[in-house]
């Protein structure tokens, strides 16, 4: 599991936006699951990250990053679970998940609940200006 230079800045942004104690926000905390972040919290977190790192991430980028550009019809199955193709992609952006446990069990609209502070920091490396971090 990778570490990166942006993790402290991302943790700080999450702590400040959610009004939590520093020790409550670990790299493996899930944003919407463990920490209870709502959509407006995510917006606040992204603006704080932008200010601290220069990485300009839109809320829509977050969804695109998680779904990897896979069309909805291929990302989800007919019963709205994440498909095998979708799970294979999720493994790449969320290395901590065990896809064998999730086959046919992960509702497509609950994918964000698995996204961690560390996953967000990894995403920031893609969006940060060259030479920063």
């Amino acid at each position, binding site marked *: 599991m990778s570490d990166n230079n942006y993790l402290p800045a991302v943790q700080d942004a999450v702590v400040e936006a959610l009004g939590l104690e520093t020790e409550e926000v670990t790299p493996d905390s899930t944003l919407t699951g463990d920490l209870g972040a709502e959509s*407006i919290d995510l*917006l*606040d977190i992204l*603006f704080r990250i*932008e*200010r601290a790192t220069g990485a300009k991430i839109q809320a829509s980028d977050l969804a695109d990053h998680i779904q990897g550009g896979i069309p909805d019809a291929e990302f989800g199955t007919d019963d709205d679970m994440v498909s095998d193709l979708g799970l294979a992609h999720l493994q790449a952006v969320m290395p901590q998940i065990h896809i064998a446990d999730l086959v046919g069990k992960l509702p497509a609209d609950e994918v964000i609940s698995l996204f961690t502070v560390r996953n967000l920091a990894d995403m920031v490396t893609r969006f940060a200006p060259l030479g920063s971090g």
Partner: protein
Amino acid sequence: MPVSAGPRGAADQPSLAGRVALVTGASRGLGAAIALGLAARGAAVAVNYHASRARAEEVVRAIEDEGGKAVALPADVADPDACAELVAGTIANLGGLDVLVNNAGITKDSLIYQQEPADWLAVMRVNFGGVVNCTRAAMGTMLRQRSGSIVNISSVMGIRGWVGESPYAASKAAINAFTRCTAVEAARFGVRANAVLPGFAATDLVAGLTTKNGGRGILRQIPAKSFAGPEDVANVVAFLAGPGAAYMTGSLVTVDGGASAVLGVGAPLG
């Protein structure tokens, strides 16, 4: 807490020095008075106009003659793309955006039974759509900088009824609701949103009402017994835009000489 000087006239304090304001529909009437009022308090002002370029440039000249900074920028606030360009133009010309006054408005008075669908839609697109479009355009900048003040020009019509005013009144009620939601969403980012609800002000927009029979019919229903001057409204807008209103957000402030407070003007009942 340090002892401060007593209250002073708002115009004595450059409370908006270094700030940049955008006022929509500022070529005349209330909008022009608001632009001048903000400039008098030190703000650089983008004077938006739709069709009246010459009048907008007069407002700019009036500000510059007093040593202020201003620019006239065209935009139809009913057009979201035009509003995005308006905000970008304000930032490009004046170096930022701290205050947005959503003032642009029209009215198409008619009885509901006789109304054309195009009438209420046109009013809604400019009055409410303009607020939505400009707010959305400005929000990215304000949320990122974690400061800003949005003042929406609503009306007492948004909280009361009047024969023939349904399109205008409904558009202003929508502005009131939108103001509250904007305030709730933006507060954590240090951005405030309030609305000013003028009563009857002596402007072109309501000249048909305020000049009919010398305005006496309406004056009888206003406890203050006078119409608002544009500067009466502009003063409240400037206050809401500035640091004195730092803890005010989501407020709907009537400036109506008591018109919306009154049940009836009469003698003691006892």
